[in-house]
């Protein structure tokens, strides 16, 4: 690399002009704690995977650096009926293998994402049909009026129909059938980067797509990308400090100071969109894991309030998160659709008041309860639970902490086999509506399984239905505010914080950090 730089430098001197120097090869090497599970963009609807795939494939519409919607493969869109959206497609776009991008690719992609084996149900579940109007126009029919359709489909990238048909990848891989799929290891998108080689769990190499339609409007200079998963925190940090990586994430909170002091790299932090909170069983008449028999103390609002007052969020921020968190009063991060700062205040830390409320509710000596917690899902998740347990103990509530790997924890939570738990939530569609639908409607009213404590309020349920189909932005915001206000007033949940995004970046590398933790290679410039 040095030689290339010196060579081009010499050439520039000889020629006496610098503008004429061709773009030099810049390899961007980065590590994440895990790997993308498959090169098939529909295999897993999970944040890191969808972000990675959007470097190779493109959606109809995409997010810009500030999470605002901008056109990608679609140039314009309009509502032509209450449930019908018409998209005009971009002209002259080619897939990496030279095939041209047309309406039939869009129709094909939506159908494939809905097929058995694809994990895109949360993005395409509400889509009734996709129809090709002409080669450059597509109609999307939704099952219900959907005010946030654009957010919903933004992560869904478009695949090439001809390529999939030629390679037997029309259907996504179905693990149960014991058959491999071409798309697991190969790609053919329209995006800025092409797949060069793929060794799952070891190394994935991409190179610039010089024919990308948007290349002229961008200023990045990365030409090659090497991705290595590094699971061990210490090794990831060491690899950054030794100069073997240009970027790695997440940078472990305990290493942030050391990285910043090293002089070779810095940690780029910003609030993430995921909110960490505590949930409480409010549906059973007797808690499953508690010393209180015959009744459920968590059904008493005063008890929930007391637990909220017991929490010292600043101590959690300072001691556990080492400053890398934003205390939250809502289960919705700033920057997400529907956020209202006026509602984001917290109940104050007040152990005295907590004790008084517990006594008033009939528990002057407190009680015992089990707190379930994942230990490998969120930043310092187990430590947060330990500290929370200590804070509860100070007001008389003794916590039996059960911290388990996410595979065990999530299975338990999904069954609502839980009395109190710690969870993080980030809405796939970046919108408040789905937070309410997933977490604030009880299962009895058609709510979804992740409302682990079965919190419910008839008015919130009603509002949730209205929010789903309200197209007037102002009215919709009023409904969202009302719903969040009620949940807050009920103390349905105890919000804790948004953990910080934490990217270790080598000096000389400039990158835009998007709040949804998506690393887009066309935001990167290497000096």
């Amino acid at each position, binding site marked *: 690399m040095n030689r290339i730089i010196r060579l081009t430098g010499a050439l520039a001197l000889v020629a006496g002009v610098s503008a004429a120097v061709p773009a030099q090869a810049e390899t961007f090497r980065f590590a994440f704690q895990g790997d993308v599970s*498959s090169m098939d963009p529909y295999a897993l609807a999970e944040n890191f995977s969808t972000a990675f795939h959007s470097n190779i494939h493109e959606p109809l519409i995409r997010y810009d650096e500030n999470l605002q919607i901008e056109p990608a493969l679609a140039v314009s869109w309009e509502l032509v009926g209450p449930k019908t959206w018409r998209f005009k497609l971009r002209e002259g776009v080619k897939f990496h293998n030279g095939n041209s991008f047309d309406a039939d690719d869009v129709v094909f992609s939506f159908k494939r994402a809905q097929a058995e084996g694809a994990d895109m149900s949360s993005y395409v579940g509400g889509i009734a049909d996709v129809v090709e109007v002409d080669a450059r126009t597509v109609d999307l029919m939704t099952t219900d009026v959907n005010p946030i359709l654009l957010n919903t489909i933004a992560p869904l990238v478009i695949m090439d129909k001809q390529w999939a048909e030629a390679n037997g990848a029309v259907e996504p891989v179905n693990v149960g059938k*014991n058959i491999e799929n071409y798309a697991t290891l190969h790609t053919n998108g329209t995006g800025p980067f092409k797949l060069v080689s793929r060794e799952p769990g070891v*190394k994935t190499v991409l190179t610039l797509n010089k024919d990308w339609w948007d290349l002229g409007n961008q200023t990045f200079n990365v030409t090659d990308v090497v991705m290595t998963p590094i699971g061990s925190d210490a*090794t990831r940090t060491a*690899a950054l400090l*030794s100069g073997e990586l240009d970027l790695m994430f997440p940078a472990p909170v305990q290493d942030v100071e050391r990285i910043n002091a090293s002089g070779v790299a810095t940690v780029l932090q910003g609030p993430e969109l995921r909110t960490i909170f505590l949930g409480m069983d409010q549906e059973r008449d007797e808690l499953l894991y508690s010393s209180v028999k015959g009744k459920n103390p968590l059904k008493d609002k005063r008890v929930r309030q007391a637990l909220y007052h017991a929490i010292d969020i600043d101590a959690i921020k300072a001691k556990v998160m080492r400053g890398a968190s934003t205390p939250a009063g809502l289960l919705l991060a700033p920057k997400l659709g529907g956020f209202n700062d006026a509602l984001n205040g917290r109940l104050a830390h007040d152990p005295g008041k907590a004790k008084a409320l517990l006594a008033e509710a009939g528990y002057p000596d407190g009680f015992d309860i089990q707190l379930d917690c994942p230990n490998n899902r969120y930043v310092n998740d187990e430590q947060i639970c330990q500290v929370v347990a200590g804070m509860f103990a100070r007001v008389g509530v003794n916590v039996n902490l059960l911290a388990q790997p996410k595979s*065990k924890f*999530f299975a338990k939570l999904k069954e609502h086999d839980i009395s109190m738990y710690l969870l993080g939530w980030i809405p796939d569609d970046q919108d408040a509506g789905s937070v309410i639908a997933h977490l604030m409607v009880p299962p009895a009213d058609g709510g979804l399984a992740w409302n682990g404590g079965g919190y419910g309020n008839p008015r919130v349920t009603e509002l949730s239905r209205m929010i789903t189909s309200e197209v007037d932005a102002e009215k919709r915001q009023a409904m969202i505010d009302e719903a969040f206000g009620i949940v807050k007033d009920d103390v349905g949940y105890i919000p804790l914080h948004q953990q910080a995004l934490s990217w270790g970046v080598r000096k000389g590398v400039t990158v835009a950090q998007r709040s949804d933790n998506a690393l887009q290679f066309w935001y990167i410039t290497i000096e």
Partner: protein
Amino acid sequence: MISFILSRISQSFLVMLGVAVISFSLFTYVGDPITNLVGIQSSDEHRERLRESLGLNDPVLVQFARFVGRAVQLEFGISYQQKRKVSSIIAERLPATLELSFLSAMIALWIGIPAGIFTALYRDSWLSHMVLSLSLIGVSLPTFLIGILLIFVFSVHLRWLPSFGRGEIVDLGFWTTGFLTASGLKALILPSITLALFQMTLIMRMVRSEMLEVLRADFIKFAHARGLPDRVVHFSYALMNTLIPVITITGLQLGSIIAFAIITETVFQWPGVGLMFIQAISEVDIPVMSTYLLLIASFFVIINLVVDLLYYFVDPRLRVGRRT
């Protein structure tokens, strides 16, 4: 001899079956594989369909029978996470582990045995004392700590050697090797030292104590009295007589080098089967986990068999005993 081998092989199958039973019954405790196969907002119907298609609703015994039935035909299924054949994933990953283990075993032997002999012959020299004290570090520090220390000294501060990965590898079709490129060799140094350190110490201390014992034996005194040169006494008589336990332990340790490469591979992000196993556990990738455990069990079984056979060559008494 042949009947001996045959009986060992049939025993081996029982061992493998036992391993399969135990590992499979453990899998019911690692958690729900579906959690790692779908995004958090996937619908319950989608999850249930997936569970049904993977056969996870069947009783554990049925799942086990299915696994064994397939394994007998050398068919290990498809990885839940990578969506590829487990056999091809292992074929990709195994060379990395075997090269690392091989090099570590070589380091352990070629340093461990000479150091053991030296410290036995010159047990009062300051060098022996130093080697012995240093070797205490090898047994007392946990592997991951040694790995991290080496990374911080040689990668972060001195920047001589890479902190992770295999470097550039050459693909020979059936095998990928790091021995043929400079960066591949450099990448091998730190992990192989980390992995070898414990075994090296063990071998050294064992050779030393065996050697000390043998040196005190009557036949060594007679050999000296007969006027044989020291070199012959030490290496032809004393060393040969210490080697039996060394071979046993080294053989068994070779199995553990491969099995315990897990920790070293995790620290150095070494793309071998150990790292694959750790990743599989955190993702509850049952086909990968069960195949790995069977593979490691078969390594142990084969190594034990080879060790038993080696006795024949090292210890003449065994050969004589069988013949009479």
